[in-house]
């Protein structure tokens, strides 16, 4: 198990290095640079700035410098946000994104398992059809539409009630987090519901469920101890990538609900070609994604004993 964990971590480091390298050269291949945006710079000022940020050196040299700094955990200073260190930006805004992401994942996983199990139990009957309809809606409607509609609905509800049930935007209290995390988790929840449904149906017809019934176990026990545990395995498999996707993919929701998360910095940095912030956030997100996948793979072994041996 320890050797396996170690192996996965080494693989993870290589993956992150690859992400960093690919992003670095892709970023430099884009026309323009962080200074091209600057108001009326004279040639001399531009030269000075380039020298200060090291942009006057060859790309390969810059790359080596960047790698060296990255190893020390230093991503440098932002080009556009005056004198803010990239590490500080991540440190301040990532906890916000992570909180939102974790809530969204919890919502998606819980909802996916419950709805998926329900659709399987009521297969081809009314509850199944209703939930399946909503699931298809959840998968097909893009996140920014759901976000806008969610916000609009919130406005209407608050107006109708005459007081603010939940705030429509901003960040701070738990009440701010409810609607954005639901919106953010919706697509994943819909996807997990489908997965859970097919997984449940497959398990229902399996031999060991027949054995459990032949043993005379009560239906609730069969459901909880035999069916659910086995049906949940594929859901856990996709949970790792889902966590990363949700946490890193939240920038639309962050923008709509005016949440000061990392997603916003990430998108802005790309638009402004803010080299250091692009590299910092990409490497950070990449490492986070890789790490979550490893964590979930290790977690999988806790539920399925067959995986533990490897």
């Amino acid at each position, binding site marked *: 198990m320890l050797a396996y964990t170690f192996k996965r971590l080494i693989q993870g480091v290589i993956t992150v290095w690859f992400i960093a390298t690919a992003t670095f050269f892709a970023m430099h291949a884009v026309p323009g640079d962080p200074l091209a945006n600057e108001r009326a710079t004279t040639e001399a000022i531009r030269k000075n700035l380039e020298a200060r940020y090291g942009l006057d050196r060859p790309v390969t040299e810059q790359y080596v410098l960047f790698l060296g700094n990255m190893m020390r955990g230093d991503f440098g200073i932002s080009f556009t946000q005056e004198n803010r260190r990239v590490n500080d930006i991540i440190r301040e805004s990532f906890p916000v994104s992570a909180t939102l992401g974790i809530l969204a994942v919890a919502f998606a996983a819980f909802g996916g398992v419950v709805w998926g199990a329900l659709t399987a139990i009521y297969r081809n009957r009314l509850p199944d059809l209703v939930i399946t309809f909503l699931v298809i809606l959840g998968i097909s409607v893009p996140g920014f539409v759901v976000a806008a509609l969610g916000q609009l609905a919130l406005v209407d509800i608050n107006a109708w009630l005459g007081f603010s049930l939940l705030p429509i935007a901003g960040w701070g209290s738990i009440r701010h987090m409810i609607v954005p995390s639901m919106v953010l988790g919706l697509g994943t929840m819909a996807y997990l519901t489908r997965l859970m449904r097919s997984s449940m149906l497959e398990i229902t017809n*399996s*031999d*060991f469920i*027949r*054995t*459990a*019934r*032949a*043993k*005379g*176990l*009560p239906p609730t*026990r069969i459901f909880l*101890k*035999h069916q659910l*545990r*086995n049906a949940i*395995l594929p859901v856990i498999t996709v949970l790792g990538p889902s966590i990363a996707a949700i946490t890193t993919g939240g920038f639309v929701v962050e923008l709509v609900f005016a949440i000061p998360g990392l997603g916003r910095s990430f998108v802005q940095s790309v638009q402004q070609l803010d080299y250091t912030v692009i590299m910092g956030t990409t490497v950070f997100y990449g490492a986070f994604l890789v790490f979550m996948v490893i964590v979930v793979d290790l977690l999988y072994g806790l*539920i*399925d*004993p*067959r995986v533990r041996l490897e």
Partner: protein
Amino acid sequence: MTASAANPVAPVLDVKDLHVEFDTYGGIVKAVRGVSFDVHAGKTLAIVGESGCGKSVTVQSIMGLIPMPPGRITRGTAMLDGVDIVQQKIVNGRDIRGNRVGMIFQDPMSALNPTMRVGDQIAETLQVHRGYSKRQAFDRAVEVLTLANIPEADKRARQYPFAFSGGMLQRAMIAIAIACEPAVLIADEPTTALDVTIQAQILDLLKDLQRRNGMAIVLITHDLGVVARMADDVSVMYAGEIVETGSVDDVFYRAAHPYTLGLKAAMPSSTTPKDQGLRPIEGTPPDLFAPPDGCGYFARCPHAMRVCGPSHPPNVEVDPRHNALCWLHHPDAPRTVSELHRRVQA
């Protein structure tokens, strides 16, 4: 207490006129059409027949394991110690399944929950039926595994099914089935998925356990070798009906139904000359969407008469406790049974 305890002659399990149907997209399949059999404590009844003849559906419907719908028991009774478990639907109650009637299945590799320790899967039954505590049930599970000839049972009980071989898993399944000392054990092709040496061990284990606790065994198989080794009585099923029933000797040496004779003739033996090929029964079983009015075996029967097509054959008692569903035994039939035997053996 129970009827069988009061009257040792009464069978433990007595199934009468069982009919089972399934709704399918193609129509209604009449899978079981009036099956009757009984089995006594300490005895083994083998139900034999080819694939799709309704063997498994018969026993699974008695156990309430067929999905309903689309499955449906339209008629019949199954008395367990004098109480009907089919019509009263009490088979779904915990008291019967896993407690009074145990069941083992064909493929042990997939019959156990892969994410649960083997010992826990046995203990579960005891917790539910006997109200044992977790600890108590697990200790008893280890004992039962030992009874099922699993070496190092206390270590094995803590392992998961993937760590077991096929034969070991079938032993574990048997341990689950006998944990509550059932009156009847239903074994649905218990050795079909296992290799021959393991088969013999499993059959010996079943016999041994039967001697120990006097349970009745209903053994479903299509292997006549297994029947000869295990059974006291045999019921031969064909197209959803029992066509012949009797003691092993009756059915093997004095077969009274042309289908049984066909099965025996099809079985190669060590004395069969090398140059003689296998002798299969020509044709296929009838379509159970529309079972024939007359004899189900009519189309394949080498001894068929005109009456066999339109009229359902009578159930004739050819010897005491030896019945055959065949017109050949009717007093007006031109051919006698002995003549039949000569023809088949020639």
